């Protein structure tokens, strides 16, 4: 059976590593450079802003721009998408003595919760598994949180620089010196257009990579500094919609089971979430592991299928979809974490570094927590008498992470995601045993397998996806439109995939992609086909990287413009 991993793209992580090339007088120098304006990067920026406010003498030494955040979206929050039910602890800690939870843009605490196992026609309510209990957690839009955190950071003197991608990690003499930002205004074949604006070398004492899922520079850094964890990293894909509903939903809902299939042979792991966002809005999403084997598995269409279930229909019926988006979720867990989270001049933060607790369905609070700890380590390394590029100067970050609550939590659930390789029921039983023993069962490391290594199979799954009606059930293209995606068409293709693949591989990409980017191209004979790519549809979810290709960031300012997700 065909496997996507056997058709690798013409791309190596080392392509994203370079040395400064701008003449010295044109280089931009900042104190701390943070790549990514998500919760991790912005928490790091905010904490640094706080520390520098308290220590003006350090701030002074860092020059005109002590802290800068690069954000590839139109603005902070543009590319942020999550459930999101968030553990507010790390946020409270970040703003301790400055803001209370009431000051944060949330929809309040989780009002109640229910977990269902679905079949096509029924829903069985089960007691929430211990990892899925959400009492005291808050509901929020991650995109809105991103905008809020960016404002807070700017208030502390941080330069938040939108529409700017980081295209290369600058490494000199074994230490990270900064990044090169991406070019803008190139044509389809890479030729500079009249508006061409080249990228810049941005140099920093400390570079913090907080790129989130599928970070290009993070993966390059892990490769370059040999930081790979014991297990390969794996991902799931989540697709969500926000609905304006006529009746308020008074609890959060998680579902398992249908429309996924329980048998291990299909490799289908995932479920749905339905969260109220105040009285008028509901966030509904479907998440499925990207190791799924069926070429016709499409998370977007699974979400549409889910909406045909009575349980969901009762919530959304009479409402109107107001937003849509998609994003991958890093799922490898403890054994897929990098061996270290620092290298000379470099810190790795948040989801890009694998800090996600899959059984708890949470990662935002880890991003914030790790961002805060990274800020404190960076600050320490910027003190007089210290040099951040010294080997070990940033090591206090690794120590702090390993001492933190998140490390203990990740360790306790270290094998849980892998257990579901055995299918839904066996996996559920194993997971219970792991919970009961606080992770001591089964007493060894269970492996993960790269998502792209799963052999593909075909079962005619797509025949069950409901037909779009443009009102309740939506096709992919109109959904891409709803994401606000307005990527310029005539820019170089940023998605690297093999030129010739086995037909099932191309089909799997076409179904997988929630944004209609890939289509099966010309028949090249011998069961091989070309892949037709429409890069301007891309909402930058990153699924192609998990499934055998490689996402790289297109021109800054491209991609979706999420505001409610």
């Amino acid at each position: 059976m065909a496997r996507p991993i056997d058709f690798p793209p013409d791309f190596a992580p080392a392509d994203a590593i370079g040395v400064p090339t701008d003449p010295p007088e044109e280089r931009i120098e900042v104190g701390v450079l943070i790549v990514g304006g998500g919760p991790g990067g912005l928490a790091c920026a905010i904490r640094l802003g706080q520390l520098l406010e308290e220590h003006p003498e350090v701030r002074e030494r860092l020059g005109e721009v002590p802290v800068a955040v690069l954000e590839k979206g139109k603005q902070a929050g543009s590319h942020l998408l999550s459930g999101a039910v968030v553990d507010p602890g790390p946020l409270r800690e970040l703003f301790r003595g400055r803001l209370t939870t009431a000051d944060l843009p949330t929809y309040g605490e989780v009002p109640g919760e229910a977990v269902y196992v679905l079949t096509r026609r029924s829903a069985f309510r089960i007691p929430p598994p211990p990892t899925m209990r959400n009492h005291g957690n808050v509901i929020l839009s991650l995109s809105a949180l991103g905008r809020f955190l960016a404002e807070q950071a700017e208030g502390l003197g941080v330069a938040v620089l939108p529409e700017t991608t980081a295209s290369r990690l600058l490494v000199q003499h074994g230490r990270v010196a900064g990044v090169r930002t991406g070019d803008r205004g190139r044509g389809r074949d890479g030729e500079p257009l009249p508006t061409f604006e080249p990228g810049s070398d941005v140099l920093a004492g400390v570079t913090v990579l907080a790129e989130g899922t599928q970070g290009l520079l993070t993966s390059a850094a892990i490769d370059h500094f040999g930081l790979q964890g014991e297990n390969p990293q794996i991902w799931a894909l989540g697709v969500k919609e926000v609905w304006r509903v006529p009746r308020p939903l008074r609890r959060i809902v998680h579902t398992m089971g249908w429309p996924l299939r329980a048998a291990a042979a299909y490799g289908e792991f995932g479920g749905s979430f339905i969260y109220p966002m105040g009285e008028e809005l509901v966030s509904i999403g479907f998440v499925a592991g990207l190791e799924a084997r069926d070429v016709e598995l499409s998370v977007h269409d699974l979400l549409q299928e889910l909406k045909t279930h009575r349980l969901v229909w009762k919530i959304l019926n009479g409402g109107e979809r107001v937003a849509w988006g998609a994003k991958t979720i890093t799922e490898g867990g403890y054994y897929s974490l990098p061996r270290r989270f620092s290298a000379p001049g470099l810190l790795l933060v948040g989801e890009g570094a694998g800090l996600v607790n899959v059984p708890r369905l949470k990662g935002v609070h880890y991003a914030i927590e790790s961002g805060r700890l990274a800020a404190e380590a960076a600050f320490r390394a910027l003190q007089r008498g210290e040099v951040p590029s010294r080997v070990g100067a940033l090591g206090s970050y690794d120590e702090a992470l390993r001492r933190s609550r998140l490390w203990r939590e990740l360790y306790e659930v270290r094998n849980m995601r892998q257990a579901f390789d055995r299918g839904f029921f066996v996996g559920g039983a194993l997971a219970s045993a792991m919970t009961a023993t606080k992770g001591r069962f089964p007493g060894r490391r269970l492996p993960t397998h790269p998502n792209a290594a799963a052999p593909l199979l075909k079962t005619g799954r797509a025949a069950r996806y409901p037909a779009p009606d443009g009102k309740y059930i939506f096709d992919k293209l109109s959904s891409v439109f709803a994401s606000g995606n307005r990527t310029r068409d005539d820019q170089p293709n940023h998605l690297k995939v093999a030129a010739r693949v086995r037909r099932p591989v191309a089909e799997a990409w076409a179904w997988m992609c929630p944004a209609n980017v890939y289509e099966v191209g010309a028949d090249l004979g011998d069961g091989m086909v070309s892949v037709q790519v429409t890069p301007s549809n891309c909402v930058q979810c990153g699924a192609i990287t998990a499934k055998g290709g490689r996402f790289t960031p297109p021109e800054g300012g491209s991609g979706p413009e999420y505001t409610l997700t």
Partner: protein
Amino acid sequence: MKIAVCVKQVPDATVHKRIDPETKRLDRSGEATLNPTDLNAVEEALRVKEAHGGEVVLVSMGPERALESLRKALAMGADRALLVADETAAGSDLVATSRVLAAALERVEADLVFFGQASSDGDGSVLWAAVADRLRRPLISQVAALTVEGGSVRGKRQTEHGYDVIAAPLPAVVAVSDAINEPRYPSLKGIMGAKAKPQETVSVADLGLPAEAVGEAGSRTVVLALGPPPARSGSVKIEDDGTAAEKIVAFLAERRLL
């Protein structure tokens, strides 16, 4: 040369736009951006500045947070911004808005005032002519190409019938179409420097205008009611039975489109 560019914050294209049924005004609470054609105006202003020296000043009217959108134009290279941010000016129609903008522009004393021709929120797409009349300045609109030399400006205006080349002495008002140029990308240094550029916020009173000259009080038009749009009348779908071409011709003839 002093160049002013009138720009406006509009709801982002991605925002689910709605008209507030109570105020009957466009709900501007969501994400906002700079009106796209205004970027063409800013680009043209920067090109004039690059050729002739001087200063590019952004002039806008809107809520305080419009400064965020103006920053994009500052990042492109505009030198400073003047924002009339005043609650009393909300809901101004053409007459009232042009009054405020003209007063703000008097303050800037620009030799050349640029507007972007179209506004994505449907408002103000005729504003320049009203402003030009109040400032007593010559006007060239729908400009697809522009030259400035020897104290005069020459613009190629697109019309329904072709092109008119129009010349006017400075000071003058010019409205540009998006065909005139391709707006530049802000450089990273430009983005970093934008926030520190002078951004002045003034009230209507600061401009010497009484409160009753602006907002709904100063407006001469009124929104009465909101309703659903009429459906596309009589949509017809036919299967080709070999005579489809004839049917299309008959349809077009009936609508006098041939």
